[in-house]
């Protein structure tokens, strides 16, 4: 079981990292810090507004694929991956 517990704690660290980024791009940049960020403009977009209506969604997608890829690697490293058919 020690093998699986190191797998599990590596998983929790990865999920923790992803959820920090998830929180930062939506709640922090899109809501809490929206006013100061709106002082910066990217093209016609105010930056805080852009995170709230566009940027956070793109980061969410990247996060899920990043997580899926890293988990696939972790599965193999800890030898808990599914059999390939």
């Amino acid at each position: 079981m020690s093998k699986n517990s190191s797998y599990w704690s590596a998983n929790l660290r990865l999920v923790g990292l992803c959820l920090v980024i998830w929180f930062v791009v939506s709640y922090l940049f899109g809501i809490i810090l929206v006013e100061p960020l709106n002082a910066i403009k990217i093209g016609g977009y105010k930056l805080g507004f852009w995170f709230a209506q566009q940027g956070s969604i793109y980061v969410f997608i990247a996060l899920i694929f990043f997580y899926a890829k890293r988990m696939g690697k972790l599965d193999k490293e800890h030898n808990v991956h599914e059999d390939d058919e």
Partner: protein
Amino acid sequence: MTLQTTTYLIVGFTFSIYIGIAIWARASTTKDFYVAGGHINPIANGMATAADWMSAASFISMAGLIAFMGYGGSVFLMGWTGGYVLLAMLLAPYLRKFGKFTVPEFIGERYYSKGARIVAVICLIVASVTYVIGQMKGIGVAFSRFLEVPYEIGLMIGMGIVFIYAVMGGMKGITYTQIAQYCVLILAYTIPAIFISLNLTGNPIPQLGLGSTMSGSEVFLLDRLDQVLRDLGFLEYTTNVRLSLTNMFMYTLSLMIGTAGLPHVIIRFFTVPKVKDARSSAGWALVFIAILYTTAPSVAAMARLNLIETIQPTGGQHMVYDERPDWVRNWEATGLLAFEDKNGDGMISYSADAATNEVTKIDRDIMVLANPEIAGLPNWVIALVAAGGLAAALSTAAGLLLAISSAISHDLLKGVFKPEISEQQELMASRVAMAGAIMLAGYLGFNPPDFAAGTVALAFGLAASSIFPALMLGIFYKRMNKEGAIAGMIAGLGVTLLYVFQHKGIMFIASTSYMGDMPQNWFFGIEPNAFGAVGAMFNFAVAFAVSKMTAPPPQEIIELVEHIRVPSGANAPISH
């Protein structure tokens, strides 16, 4: 060809595809019926999930809401997408590994309790039935508006189509139909958006157009929109906060947790072959959802600007009522757009001041529905929007109906009351339950209860405050026991219902609201629709406290949790 004929042709064509798929994808086992045999490709499942998820509300109403809420509308954009991050990392892979058919089944086994399973079935049915009412209404409305058949007839045609493919094919039929429906709805959404973006900014990609300058000018589109709104006395589009930042924070969080806890979405991840596929499939689902969700803010801002500039092209100029464009006449005829020339000057002025404002009604749904006409697009595009709205409503309704019928046939009948029935009998029962669920949804569509408008928020509140915490604790906290989970679900549900009912009225009957629907009485200024996250926190707190005071779960449950935490040794979903 008239618009009417074109619409009939395109809607008829999409419906014949759905029926063709129904005949091809018949379910012959309970595994086919509940989880499409467990061998849907993760990308295909992502597409089906996107159609399952995006309802009539996402397709028709969301851009309209954002158009009038501006920045405040971001809660829907972030809330309804960020939930997939939670789903992909906290629930989907583990529930797939568990390898059974329904959400209550997991709760029942993980908490070694038929009672917990029944509580979960009740939460699931309440959340899904309230949600399905809105879809049935959407189907009826889309038919009556675009095909000019009565609401009731439209509803019956919609029910008939869902009946054919959902009863015959179960999850298998629904999955393949949803893939077709996704293609229809995404084309219907993006084509008008591309043309409008091209018209206004010269950039064909709406997501870039929104950040670009107006055609033939140096002024950014969003700056122009802020400026015209300020001139008319409205709040600026890009900084218009909904109530308070605290409220927006809680609203977004409630929608995210609610999204991850909605059973009809979760069960879609039971259909992929492997744990690995469940993770990537959530990513694909979000890609397909994001195509619509990142286009919606552009549609919203551009439609708002187009509308204002039709009425008041530049400062001081006004639309002359007798010379109004055709699309304005068309939508006036539906009653969704109305003007009143208060000062009798033959011109229409638009203003935030109710006394001088002559635009007396703008239904938010017009923003998407009238888009192709505003941009002067050909009839087939307008007809495609009708087919897209129907595809969005039908696909979501079918997914919800499957969640309801499997909870009845698999969890209640097979799981609790008659465990001895054979697979063939259970398959028969699941078809009967599906037919029953369609009848119930149809009945509620014909006689929508008074509280229909507020119910989608309730569905998210229930999913966030009851189902999500029970699932997450079941996976991430081994020590969580039956007593803690049940107490947590009931506490989360109770607090959320109490808050919604005390401000919106018991069962949404406004006169029974004993605290009034007013911001002064709101807890930290949080509106009732945004309360699911507080309910979820209550659930977590009560579940922890009660589990600490009661006996730990038995050893075999600890082993079950350890088993679902690793991908290896996964089987395809099995019946038991």
